């Protein structure tokens, strides 16, 4: 078995990305994601890759666009305000069907907000990463091990569907260290062919064009429809979630990322107090794991969604539950991390409310 090492979440994502064949990183410093860029700056040259600190987030994401168009595995990372700046470029990537990986180590918002951990960018990641009709795949790891695993897998998903993929972390996961077993590095020959890429070919074929501008409305309509057929396949194939103690659960918590760790502790405390609580932990935020959440509706008396925000994912849970049982929310905003005791109190209150 490969050796366990102690790493920060930010560093584990960077290392795993390089092992997945990422050879270009363009970024701009911002707390609490800076270790991703620092790790890349130190280590990317050792594998013959390119690390570049751009002059801004806008520049960085457009460099990602360029490298992706040339067929490279490429990544950028930032934290909440920086992701807003990148959103134009992400929309362009989606419009040009370019694969690439974007890390968001979320911090409190809106505006410059705080530098403390937060999950207030759920809507941005899943509904509106930029203008226009598009989605990106969003992974929400909950441990340093998953940060490595999904940073690694994200490149395959991106290439497979030709979509941008986001790793949705937060300051807690980015800054903490846990033991991690890193994925085995991919050989250059294991990476997928990209016949659409705009790389040199010695005039062996017609030019490839990578573009997101279509002035004929009907052409753009058709292209959007084709893209949404791809999204339907992603929705069918890529939903991921973990269920914990849900078999007989009356109160089903739904939480992702850092808040899922806290929710899990609260579920155990509730069980110790005689309340049948369980947790569904979305691992993909888009596509939202409708099947895993939906499977709990029949057995549950109520849902409790826990987020480090004012309540965003709770809307997707309500869309799945369709009013059949109550869906309540507990959250802390601005960078405050909820405690297991606070979440337990919310479980106890909800359990009393929905009764025997």
């Amino acid at each position, binding site marked *: 078995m490969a050796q*366990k*090492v*102690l790493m920060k979440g930010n560093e584990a994502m960077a290392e795993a990305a390089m092992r997945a064949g990422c050879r270009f990183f363009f970024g701009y410093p911002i*707390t*609490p994601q800076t270790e991703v860029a620092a790790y890349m700056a130190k280590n990317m040259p050792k594998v013959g890759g390119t690390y570049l600190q751009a002059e801004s987030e806008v520049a960085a994401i457009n460099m990602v666009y360029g490298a992706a168009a040339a067929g490279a595995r490429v990544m950028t990372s930032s934290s909440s305000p920086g992701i807003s700046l990148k959103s134009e470029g992400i929309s362009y990537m989606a419009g040009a069907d370019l694969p690439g990986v974007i890390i968001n180590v979320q911090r409190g918002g809106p505006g410059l907000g*705080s*530098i*403390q951990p937060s999950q207030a960018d759920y809507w941005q990641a899943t509904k509106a990463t930029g203008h226009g009709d598009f989605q990106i795949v969003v992974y929400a790891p909950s441990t340093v091990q998953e940060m490595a695993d999904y940073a690694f897998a994200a490149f395959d998903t991106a290439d497979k569907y030709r979509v941008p993929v986001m790793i949705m972390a937060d*300051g*807690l996961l980015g*800054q*903490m*260290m*846990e*033991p991690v077993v890193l994925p085995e590095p991919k050989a250059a020959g294991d990476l997928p062919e990209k016949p659409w890429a705009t790389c040199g070919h010695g005039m062996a074929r017609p030019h490839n064009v990578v573009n997101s501008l279509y002035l004929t409305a009907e052409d753009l309509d058709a292209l959007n429809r084709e893209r949404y057929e791809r999204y339907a396949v992603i929705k069918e194939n890529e939903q991921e979630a973990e269920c914990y103690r849900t078999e007989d659960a009356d109160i089903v918590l739904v939480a992702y990322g*850092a808040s899922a*760790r*806290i929710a*899990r*502790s609260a579920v*155990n405390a509730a069980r110790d107090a005689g309340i049948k609580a369980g947790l569904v932990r979305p691992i993909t935020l888009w596509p939202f794991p409708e099947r895993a959440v939906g499977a709990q509706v029949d057995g549950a008396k109520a849902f409790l969604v826990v987020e480090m925000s004012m309540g965003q994912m709770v809307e997707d849970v309500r869309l799945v539950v369709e009013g059949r049982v109550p869906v309540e929310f507990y959250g802390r905003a601005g*960078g405050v*991390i909820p*405690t*297991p005791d606070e979440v337990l109190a919310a479980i106890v209150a909800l359990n009393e409310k929905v009764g025997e």
Partner: protein
Amino acid sequence: MSQDLKCVVAGFGGQGSLFAGKVIATAGLMEDREVSWMPSYGPEMRGGTANCSVTLSDEPIGSPLVLDPNALIALNQPSFDKFLDTVVEGGVVVVDTAMVPNVEERPGIEVIGIPATKMCEEAGLKGLGNIVLIGKLWATTGFCTRESLDAAIASVVPASKPEKLAQNRQAIELGINA
């Protein structure tokens, strides 16, 4: 296996509280336990209470933030004052009395003061007060085996600085025998 360790290490920036936490976390890694290490990275870094939370457990760890420690290493007065009342009953507080003039007691909590910084300076180990205090915490709680503690030190000290490794080992011994 042994009891969970939920530890906070706190001090001024530069006193090595994050490094000390990493040593403890690495000791847990050596024993293949569940481990988490979480630094403060917000404004408290400037207030003299730069700190990290370390958990060693046999169960998956929920929040890596330790709010109810059973062990506290306090490297300065503001950290001692801030975290003393978070320590649970039966917990252990190891404090550098060379840096913390006002050491208070709490019923049900074992507060152990040693002048770690001064001891280090006298032994020619300037800057290793944090490691001395780990030695004392280990001697008091036995949070890992001696082999794991030694392996952790060897793993965390950069291989390029062999002289540092010897000094760190000496500092651990100072703490254990204090």
